């Protein structure tokens, strides 16, 4: 067998052979950033727990938890400037909240009083997208439009490992590369598309390798290492902002909870596997390094949890009230001006 040497241009697009890591490597901590990341991770975990509890109380129709993926969620929001745009999937409520959307508004879709609970233009956050990977071409198009207008705006789109099999994933990445659109695609590879494991999803060496076929760089990062994810995303965003075009980032992580509260994950994955990933919990990894550097004390830990509890209590209070519902709203936003047919149906109510 002969080994064909890849040309340098191709090698430059290949992801790193091992996922990029910061924690546990002896890297010097950022004494300002890392404690803040930790505070946000604690908050994020608490919100995941709170939202899951609210489904049991019937206050949310369903909740696709991002427990275990909080490092990706937080980093995705922090990597962007206020003028940038975030394109989330249904599992990315936490990224949306970290971006600044009030928690109860971010959960509007899952509460079910309207499909989107916030104004996307106000927050520069697209609606949570339920059909898989279909938000990716939107991110490409929006980034392209910003570039056409000469605006310094980057789009960051989130997708899961299952979503990379969709045609829209392919088309979005291909368009982005051809147009050199300022967009970053973050694949949260949490190993399962509901029940189907990654091995049944792709034969690629990694999902980040797919970037090479489009002519964009692929990056591989430990998705449970918050400083690492943020570093890689910030590099990708800076690359896009400087006119370098799109990047595909694959973050290796794990969905600790089931797909949603309606799913039973014990049917398709062994408890040992989940236990092993709990050892690599993003909060544990960051706390270990912080404590080693004296940047996390019992007191700051308590303060972080108290802050998270306050937020959770506010979310509980917001969702424990019944939303104001008006059936006439059903007709109000289908068109700028309702058609005569819609007016007739509305007036007949």
């Amino acid at each position: 067998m002969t080994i064909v040497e890849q040309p340098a241009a191709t090698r430059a697009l290949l992801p790193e052979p091992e996922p990029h890591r910061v924690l546990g490597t002896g890297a010097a901590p950022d004494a300002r950033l890392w404690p803040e990341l930790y505070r946000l991770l604690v908050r994020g975990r608490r919100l995941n727990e709170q939202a899951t509890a609210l489904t049991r109380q019937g206050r949310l129709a369903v909740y696709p938890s991002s427990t275990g993926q909080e490092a990706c969620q937080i980093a995705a929001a922090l990597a962007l400037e206020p003028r940038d745009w975030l394109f989330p999937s249904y599992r990315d409520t936490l990224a949306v909240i970290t971006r600044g959307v009030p928690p109860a508004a971010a959960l509007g879709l899952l509460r079910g009083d309207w499909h989107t609970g916030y104004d996307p233009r106000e927050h520069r956050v697209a609606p949570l997208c339920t059909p898989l990977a279909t938000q990716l071409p939107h991110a490409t198009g929006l980034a392209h439009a910003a570039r056409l207008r000469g605006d310094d705006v980057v789009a960051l789109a989130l997708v899961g490992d299952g979503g990379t099999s969709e045609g829209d994933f392919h088309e979005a990445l291909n368009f982005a590369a051809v147009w050199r659109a300022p967009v970053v695609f973050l694949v949260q590879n949490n190993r399962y598309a509901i029940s189907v494991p990654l091995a049944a999803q792709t034969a690629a060496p990694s999902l980040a390798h797919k970037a090479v076929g489009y002519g964009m760089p692929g990056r591989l990062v430990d998705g449970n290492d918050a400083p690492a994810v943020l570093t890689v995303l910030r590099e990708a965003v800076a690359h896009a902002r400087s006119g370098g075009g799109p990047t595909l980032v694959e973050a290796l992580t794990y969905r600790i909870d089931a797909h949603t509260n309606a799913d039973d994950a014990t049917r398709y994955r062994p408890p040992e596997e989940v236990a092993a990933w709990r050892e690599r919990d993003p909060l544990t990894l960051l706390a270990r390094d912080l404590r080693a550097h004296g940047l996390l004390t019992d007191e700051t830990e308590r303060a972080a949890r108290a802050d998270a509890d306050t937020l959770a209590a506010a979310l509980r209070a917001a969702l424990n009230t019944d939303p104001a519902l008006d059936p006439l709203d059903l007709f109000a936003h289908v068109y700028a001006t309702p058609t005569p047919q819609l007016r007739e149906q509305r007036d007949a109510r």
Partner: protein
Amino acid sequence: MAQALNRALRDALAADPDVHLLGEDIGTLGGVFRVTDGLAAEFGPERCADTPLAEAGILGAATGMAMYGLRPVVEMQFDAFGYPAFEQLVSHVAKMRNRTRGALPLPLTVRVPYGGGIGGVEHHGDSSEAYYMATPGLHVVTPATVADAYGLLRQAIATDDPVVFLEPKRLYWSRDDTVELPATVEPFGRAVLRREGADATLVTYGPAVPVCLAAADAAREAGWDLGVLDLRTLVPFDDATVCAEVRRTGRAVVVHEASGFAGPGAEIAARVTERCFHHLAAPVLRVTGHDIPYPPPMLERHHLPDVDRVLSAVARLQWEDQV
């Protein structure tokens, strides 16, 4: 008609820097039907852009562009090539305004050359309007005249909601020397009586309008005075004009190329019957394409509504009851 569409696009590009055209072969080539001829040269390859060959990508990217505030106009090269973009159209384009309570309207136009009668091979002759009509959130528009090609397309691009703009392929080469461009631009939702008639109304649109006009001419010999009503916009639907006309004549035949079963004519016949029952002297009949996959070119004339089929439907409008 292709030239009127071209002029509408050119005028829209000149009037508004946010208008951007995207599609396959619309740049250097000017589109397979030449509707975008010369526009890339005049406005540059970014405003009349050849995209990769991927319809979902085209419409998905256009959606993102519209989210940012641009006013994209995309071309689906042929009716059946629009199907890969169907998920984007149904799940996002049609719903974005509604799912965001009006915060994120999508001013985007999807141009689709549609229908048969040009000897095209498989997948080049579909009439896909029923799919679009059944999708709330879309406007569905189709011109039958040179003047409407201009006016309706300008209106489509100016509309703050998504519009599926269906261009009858076999009318691309139609001419009307009486029309001076730019033609009048009017709001959607107004049907137009192309020909007055006292005995029965042919309710039609797009490529079937000239067929109905020819049928009305031929009907003179049989002693029938037929009106021809061109719907122009299928969504929103002009119930008022359709009902006024049918009430006047008491008889109606709906004519279109799309298949009849669960097709546009079924909806139109139901609406007319619900609203005009006591004015009707006969059931509303339909003359449509058969319920078959679009036929190969050598057989398409057996599928498309023609003058004979329209007249034979008119003959079945229970005239004997009148005597």
